[in-house]
């Protein structure tokens, strides 16, 4: 990109940030340091001075220029915004400031590449065994680190030989007629291509509960692009997805097994990308993370809870981008109802990966340090399985602890006797 158009883009983003209502929230900062005590990144590295400093404090000095490049070390985990008692949108301010900085400095090819999750899935599925072998190959990973900047130790998804949509086409039609109406299912890139098993099980659980599950053709939510400062691309992705999810009907509840993508639709696209389309707001208010939905059913007395016992200890990690939806940790509440299942909450803020953050060679060590208490906790408390609601976090936990990590719905599927 030419210097001129780069400057224009940076200026455009800066103008937007300057007029964002949420930027005003920095005036609510009372310097209580509560966010500082919760930031997982500044806890492990002095390279990042922490949310209060980089957010409400430094933002006052970003007058047309990115004065503080340490904002690049913010992982966008969102924790600072969650804990700030005064309602300062610290993480959102950081994300925007970083996007401005990236627009000024240019976005590395690596950051463009790792955001292409659907493309990766589509390209890898037909050649899954080969793709997996390449990603398992040390030499290949070393070359990838040198040339592209993706750390050789970072977790990579495992490609499947059959995508979810192929399975949907080939499977026998459900025999039981729906008793509770229709739902739209949002599986995310992971459910579609890499974690097909969890997506199938989610559909089977919902059908078991009596719902008709509609699975429209769907793309990526753009979260990875957004957190890498590629706002135009991210906006296009999320708008496309919103249209796709609205296709089956505009009054149906949308159920998601992609924890962080749900957050993108509920609030991040609105707050960080600045998209105020009524269509996005419509999808954002109709979407429910699957455990959130099941707990709502439970609260209403509509969830069958005659679960079969699943006798094991289960370390469970609630990911940062789920907690930032401000709805607690419904999966933990849900899993606790399964007899015999001893759910052990990680009580750790973040696993370190934060989408694509922990893949990058300059941040890999930080991400590993962030996740270390979690990996130790998982290693010490498992009977062969751990659970977590978001895909990249599962890959990170599995990669660094060596313990197979699944979506909570997999355990629920088992407890309903479906597997």
């Amino acid at each position: 990109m030419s210097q001129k158009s780069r400057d224009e883009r940076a200026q455009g983003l800066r103008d937007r940030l300057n007029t964002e209502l949420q930027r005003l929230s920095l005036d609510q900062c009372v310097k209580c340091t509560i966010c500082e005590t919760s930031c997982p990144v500044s806890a492990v590295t002095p390279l990042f001075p922490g949310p209060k400093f980089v957010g409400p404090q430094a933002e006052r000095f970003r007058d047309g220029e990115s004065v503080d490049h340490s904002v690049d070390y913010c992982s966008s985990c969102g924790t600072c915004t969650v804990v700030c008692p005064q309602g300062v949108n610290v993480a959102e301010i950081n994300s925007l400031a970083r996007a401005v900085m990236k627009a000024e400095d240019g976005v590395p090819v690596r950051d463009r590449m790792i955001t292409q999750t659907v493309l990766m899935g589509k390209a890898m599925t037909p050649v899954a065994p080969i793709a997996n072998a390449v990603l398992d190959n040390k030499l290949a990973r070393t070359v990838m680190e040198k040339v592209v900047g993706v750390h050789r130790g970072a977790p990579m998804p495992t490609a499947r030989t059959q995508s979810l949509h192929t399975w949907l086409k080939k499977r026998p039609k459900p025999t039981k007629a729906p008793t509770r109406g229709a739902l739209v299912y949002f599986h995310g890139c992971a459910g579609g291509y890499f974690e097909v098993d969890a997506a199938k099980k989610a559909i089977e659980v919902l059908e078991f509960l009596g719902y008709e599950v509609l699975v429209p053709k769907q793309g990526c939510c753009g979260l990875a692009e957004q957190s890498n400062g590629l706002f135009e691309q991210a906006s296009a992705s999320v708008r496309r997805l919103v249209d796709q999810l609205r296709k089956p009907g505009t009054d149906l509840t949308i159920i998601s097994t992609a924890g962080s993508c749900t957050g993108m639709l509920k609030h991040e696209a609105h707050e960080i990308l600045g998209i105020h389309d009524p269509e996005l707001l419509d999808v954002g208010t109709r979407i429910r993370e699957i455990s959130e939905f099941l707990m709502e059913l439970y609260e209403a007395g509509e969830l069958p809870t005659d679960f079969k016992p699943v006798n094991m200890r289960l370390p469970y990690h609630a990911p940062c981008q789920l907690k930032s939806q401000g709805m607690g940790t419904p999966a933990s509440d849900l899993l606790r109802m399964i007899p015999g299942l001893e759910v052990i909450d990680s009580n750790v803020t973040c696993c370190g990966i934060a989408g694509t953050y922990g893949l990058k060679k300059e941040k890999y060590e930080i991400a590993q340090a962030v996740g270390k208490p979690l990996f130790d906790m998982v290693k010490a408390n498992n009977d062969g399985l751990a659970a977590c609601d978001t895909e990249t976090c599962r890959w990170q936990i599995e990669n660094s602890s060596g313990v197979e990590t699944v979506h909570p719905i997999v355990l629920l599927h088992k407890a309903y006797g479906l597997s």
Partner: protein
Amino acid sequence: MSRVVVIGAGLAGLTAALRLARAGQSVTLATKGPGGLQLSQGTIDILGYSPERVTRPLEAIASLPDEHPYASIGADEVAAAVIWLGQQLGPELLTGDPSTNLHLPTAVGALRPTALAQPSMVAGDARSLSAHEQRGAAPRSLSAPEARDAHARSLSAPEERGGVSKGLTYAVVGVRQLKDFPADLIAGNLARTTAPDGTRLAANSAWIDLQARPGEADPSPLTYARSMDDEAFAATFARAVAKAAGKGDVVAVPAVLGIRRRGVWQQVQDIVGRPVCEIPLPPPSVPGLRLYEALLALVRAAGVRFIQGSHVTGFTPDGGRVASVTLAAAGGPRELAADAVVFAPGGFESGALSVDSYGTISEPVFGLPLTATDAGELITEKYWGPHPLFEVGVRVDDAGRPVGERGVAHENLYVAGGIIAGAERWRDKSGDGVAVATAIRAADHITGGAR
């Protein structure tokens, strides 16, 4: 079993949630962020000033005005509540006797009265030397025999100091990297101070130069404390302190002696070979965080559903009751159904009470009746003078339910902590005790007194 929603994760909300969960209730704790605990000194104050300095807080409660939140609770209940909390947290985190105040040095070298403190602070209590000896508090907590001998030597016979009997001598040790611990100022002010028992304190200061994380010029107390969770670093720190500290009965250091690992203070004290006390720093307060994290861990282990990051913005009434509260979650409002609600949102400082540009005071979530609604005359000219504004809040019945002119606001709505009217809590230092005692009152009324 009823469903109880507790709002707020300050000392009041956490205490209420724990008490309810221990009594077998199904509890959801909903909060925007953590409350004031991690900004606090990490002690539990019961009553520090009334308006003169208080040494026996439970006795002083009897003479408080009727408006004070303690008046309707009584000293016995306050003591029982604080003792219960101390037992929940355990002696590694809280120690002391609610009937007697400790007087602990602050980060500006003043003495601050408090009832329960962390064991790592108690050696700093400005009682006379003989009181220290009688109680045996400091020697008992020393484990190495050499350390015990050193302490016995340091407890010399009472001497005269400028005509008054000699009190404790503090050897204050600062860390060059920790800007919020001005060791010279602390020692200078302590040396000008007469202890509550009339003895004259003495103090000297010294510094160590020890980086916690390589390449970090300006650590917060928290990052420094995290490094202390590493045993080897804590030992290096202790050896440096032992070498630098001047003569004195107690070695006073910044309160950074570990955050997760218990026993850092004991380790440091054993190496230093004299009683060591921690002095809390301005936020982020490490002792405050220890209490917050420990209390939250107990609450979660007790099975409480914890929802953080969303404001409660309103409620749905059902006759004279609150049927559910409304949570402003991402993606739109969510209703939390409740059989009973404990509302523990703090005061002005946490946004629980607000004053608009016309000077009108309000409580925005339930629109509760307040003791005053016009801020105009409640802010006085003297900055350090009393400000009646801070006494504004909710008036309650004996069960802890808000009452207005037309009686109880909602049958199943209880309040606890800073929202309750009648005390300038940061001035009389009653905020912690009020939070704990009112939380337990609310919880016990909900469970019908069941423990």
